[in-house]
């Protein structure tokens, strides 16, 4: 479990529009990396290229390489389905399957590709994943109830449980707390700190305090103006980015002078 990601000269397009330009970044295994930057700077777009979710949107494509422990995700004979089963994702809005019970939600990814799993293995996996997402104690008595009956924060932790149930190499999180209250946010942040022991975690956030709290390294993305491509401005240790960044734009952003 847990692999490194190396991105080389990545350009991301929506049809002809260049959304993100020339990203080079190295993400270490078992670490938390935060992407920060103003709205529309392409950080979410870039995140979605790391598990090939970007190309779900019609017309979307990329140029360049994303290497997972040296293997290019965009190699011609790589199936995006395989990529996504190894690189889990948690979205901005909690999205458990409303037609499934809590238990079935956790097992959803495992049951893909018609994999068979015995009843007792399934029970163990559900408990392990829900414990891993700090949700077990809250839902253990109602595993057969619909996942949509949980609170927003619980739903988001259910989504995290669903993501870690398949033991991915990497977990991507796209503003996972932006729809949650402060207490639920704290619960997720604690969880991210624990996840780091086993997984490579990449998180997009609008909340700079959050980036400072949870991440080891921080990448600052910015955009020169509307219609211009987003770029990776600075990438480094989180402490450095927030205390003495080398680029003026980063300093302006983290000190709240714009954006």
């Amino acid at each position: 479990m847990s692999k490194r990601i190396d991105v080389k000269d990545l350009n991301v397009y929506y049809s002809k529009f260049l959304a993100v330009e020339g990203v080079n970044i190295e993400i270490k295994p078992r670490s938390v990396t935060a992407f920060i930057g103003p709205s529309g700077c392409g950080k979410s777009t870039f995140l979605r290229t790391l598990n090939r979710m970007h190309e779900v949107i019609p017309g979307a494509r990329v140029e360049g390489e994303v290497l997972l422990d040296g293997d290019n995700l965009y190699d011609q004979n790589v199936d995006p389905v395989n990529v996504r089963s190894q690189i889990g994702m948690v979205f901005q809005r909690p999205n458990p399957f409303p037609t499934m019970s809590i238990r079935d939600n956790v097992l959803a990814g495992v049951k893909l590709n018609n994999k068979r799993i015995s009843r007792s293995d399934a029970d163990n996996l559900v408990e392990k994943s829900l414990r891993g997402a700090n949700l077990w104690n809250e839902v253990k008595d109602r595993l057969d109830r619909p996942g949509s009956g949980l609170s927003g924060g619980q739903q988001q932790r259910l989504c995290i449980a669903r993501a870690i149930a398949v033991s991915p190499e990497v977990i991507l999180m796209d503003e996972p707390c932006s729809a949650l209250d402060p207490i639920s946010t704290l619960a997720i942040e604690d969880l991210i700190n624990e996840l780091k022991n086993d997984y490579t975690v990449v998180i997009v956030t609008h909340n700079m305090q959050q980036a400072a709290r949870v991440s080891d390294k921080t990448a600052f993305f910015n955009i020169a103006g509307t219609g211009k491509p987003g770029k990776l401005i600075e990438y480094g240790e989180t402490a450095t980015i927030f205390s003495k960044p080398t680029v003026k734009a980063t300093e302006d952003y983290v000190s709240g002078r714009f954006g």
Partner: protein
Amino acid sequence: MSTTTLTETRGAGQSGDKIFSGATLAAGCLILAVLFSVAMFLLVQALPVAGADPAEITGGEGFSTYIFPIVIGTVVAAAIALLIATPLGIGVALFISHYAPRRLAQSFGYVIDLLAAIPSVVYGAWGYAVLAPELAKGYAWLAENLGWIPIFEGPASQTGRTMLTAGIVLAVMVLPIITSLSREIFLQTPNLHEEAALAMGATRWEMIRMAVLPFARPGIISAAMLGLGRALGETMAVALVLSGGALTASLIASGNQTIAAEIALNFPEAFGLRLSELIAAGLVLFVITLAVNMVARWIITRHKEFSGAN
């Protein structure tokens, strides 16, 4: 002063509200009144059958003996239609909503909608003149090779104007209803859930099974029920296609009849008790349709908790 501003009426806006709520109330009452008057018509006109001497009823053995075969015929024809049209309609709808390139999907959708615009008498004529003779060849083969199964028992109809043909024509007729409704619902599947499935490494088909179909389930049932309603009540196409007769198990031999076709074929010459018989048959069809719809509603509400509406 403040109390007067609170109790003051705003004139125009408020009366507009009253007119609108009155209009909706009237529309609602109108529907009930029409339904009530049709039901009363059926009941009153069918009443003579209840008191009649069984020997006077067509067939000579009472109303239930008369109605039973055509009830079965009606249900079987509609069941065949639904059995064919539901999977096909869901498949076509999925193709349009999730597989076809956007431009093709749109024109394909229009073509399907066009199918619904063809009058039923045309479907009947097509089934009679084109489909039945073609199917007759297949029926002969079925009777020869699978004749041991009761529904394919020979002798096969030479003209092909059988229950199975009627069912297939009905299937074509209900296909556009099921397809367009399912398509609309498939397109409404929240992007959120589709992406959740894809991000876990689901293939497109797995994504459809995981996110689209469960979400669309109540809609698919409603679509099928609307289709069933049309298949149960369809008169002209069945009257033209089916060479009716006594109840038989075989779907590829002449025979069987549906309630709607029975009424249409006999109504012009019917009077007195015969007329009441046909209207009573209509009442039975009314009850069947009602029962089917209630069962469908029950199925949908049974799963409400997991529907995603909460």
